[in-house]
């Protein structure tokens, strides 16, 4: 008697409660298998792959197995989901309008995972959003970037996908530039030699080859401006920039080379003129 309810059809669809139950059980088993597959993948294979590839493949395996089980379960129980698809079509349009940004983020997330303009762990900059930091991950709807002050910024995938992304990921090194002004009376060659020696000696992360370069860029109002360009390992900006100007200033001070401050000579005409 108790099992009669399992044979009871749901409305006039011809689908019984029992079939729905069996379908649910098969899908449930599918979820368990997907989780086991995910666990095996993480332990056995993910360690040998790059982090972002492992994450993408992990999601593909998990959701792929569940979808396969769902389709197998509906097919084996004679549940024709084409009707659902047609019915869902209309609902899809309604929901699509309502959830436009959600779907857009989802699709953008997929494209970001396929195109891989940046990878997990890369230092990235989104100039439009004024965000600079390390990409933590790209999820289904959003990406997370940890800024250098420790805060984490969540960026919708659509924005991430359509933004200009600046990254140093393709090169092992990057360049940092500073401008130093010396007084007009000073010998430029000597000042450059002093700065070069000081950088090589004191900035340990500055590359010896390519060596720092020095360009006189401007004969400015108060100073001769020299553009100092230093190459260093890509992720070591904080090891170079905070000390670079200190090292240069100390070296110039030690050699008595003046770094002038802006000044204006006011000529007070004599009474004879």
């Amino acid at each position, binding site marked *: 008697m108790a099992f009669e309810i399992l044979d009871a059809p749901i409305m006039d669809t011809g689908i019984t409660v029992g079939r729905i139950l069996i379908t649910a059980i098969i899908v449930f088993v599918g979820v368990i298998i997907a989780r086991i597959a995910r666990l095996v993948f993480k332990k056995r294979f993910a360690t040998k792959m790059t982090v972002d590839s492992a994450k993408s493949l992990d999601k593909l395996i998990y959701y792929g197995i569940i979808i396969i089980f769902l389709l197998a379960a509906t097919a084996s129980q004679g549940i024709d989901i084409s009707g659902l698809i047609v019915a869902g079509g209309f609902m899809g349009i309604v929901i699509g309008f309502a959830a436009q940004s959600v779907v857009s983020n989802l699709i953008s997330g997929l494209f970001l995972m396929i195109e891989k303009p940046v990878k997990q762990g890369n230092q990235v900059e989104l100039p439009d959003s004024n965000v600079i930091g390390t990409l933590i991950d790209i999820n289904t709807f959003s990406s997370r970037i940890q800024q250098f002050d420790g805060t984490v910024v969540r960026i919708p995938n659509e924005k991430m996908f359509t933004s200009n992304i600046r990254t140093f990921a*393709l*090169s*092992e*090194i990057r*360049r940092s530039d500073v401008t130093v002004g010396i007084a007009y009376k000073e010998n430029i060659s000597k000042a450059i030699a002093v700065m070069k020696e000081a950088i*090589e*000696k004191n900035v*340990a*992360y*500055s*590359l*010896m*080859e*390519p060596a720092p370069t020095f360009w006189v860029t401007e004969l400015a109002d108060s100073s001769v401006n020299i553009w100092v360009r230093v*190459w*260093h*390992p890509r992720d*070591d900006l904080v*090891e170079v920039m905070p000390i670079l100007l200190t090292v240069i200033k100390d070296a110039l001070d030690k050699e008595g080379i003046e770094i002038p401050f802006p000044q204006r000579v006011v000529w007070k005409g004599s009474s004879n003129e």
Partner: protein
Amino acid sequence: MQTKNKIEYSNYGEYLVSDKLELFLPKTQIIIEKKENRFSYYRKNSENKELTKSISGKKDKIRIELAPILPLNLPAKKTKDLMFLRLAESVFVEKDSMADILVEFPVEIGIFVVNSDNSKDFFDCFTCEPMHSRFALYGTPDKGKLCMYGKVKLLEESEKPEPYVFAKMKVTITNKLNEGQSVGKLIFSLTHHNIYYLDNVADAHIDDISALIKKEEAIKIIEIKHVEYSKKDNNWKLAPRASIKSEKRKFSMDRGFD
């Protein structure tokens, strides 16, 4: 004065510490001292940078080993394997000929704790010449390889490299081209190299390399391979390793070598 300093420096090798041990190296001082339940470790360099650590345990004595190690750790571990040697004077190798040269090779100094079963655990490393712990790029900024860097001089057979700063390395350059070539830099995989040392004179020698200059698809390249140091006798001790060996045993310099 120079000779006097050399004599005062501590040698490579094993030390048994029961109460207090002071080691003096160029620009570096190390003190290991027995405390109640531990040994304290103190290191100070020429820039007055200090480091203190402890070795735990209730042992009465500990054994440590002071040895030269591959220069891959300072100022930071950035490259797993590659070394860039810039020769202070480039070497011209005539066409279809071979040349043997001896060069300095920068080393770091490692401190290892020797266990009761004679296994050795890496404990600390430092350099006696910070100017030799630098980076360089081999290739262009967009495609280059980050390497550890050392600017080195050529040595004579009888000449000893500066102790605690350099080891000696032999480079065999073979030019298979129909024209002479100048070689000003050598880039190669490093982690397969062993360093050997003499503990009574603080002398060190690293495994050698062979460099074959040839043409590959119309590009002149140097193929550099690791060669085991063959002249070592029983007096040379194998220094413990602070880094893991990589799979690579050869490196092709296909982005210039002058």
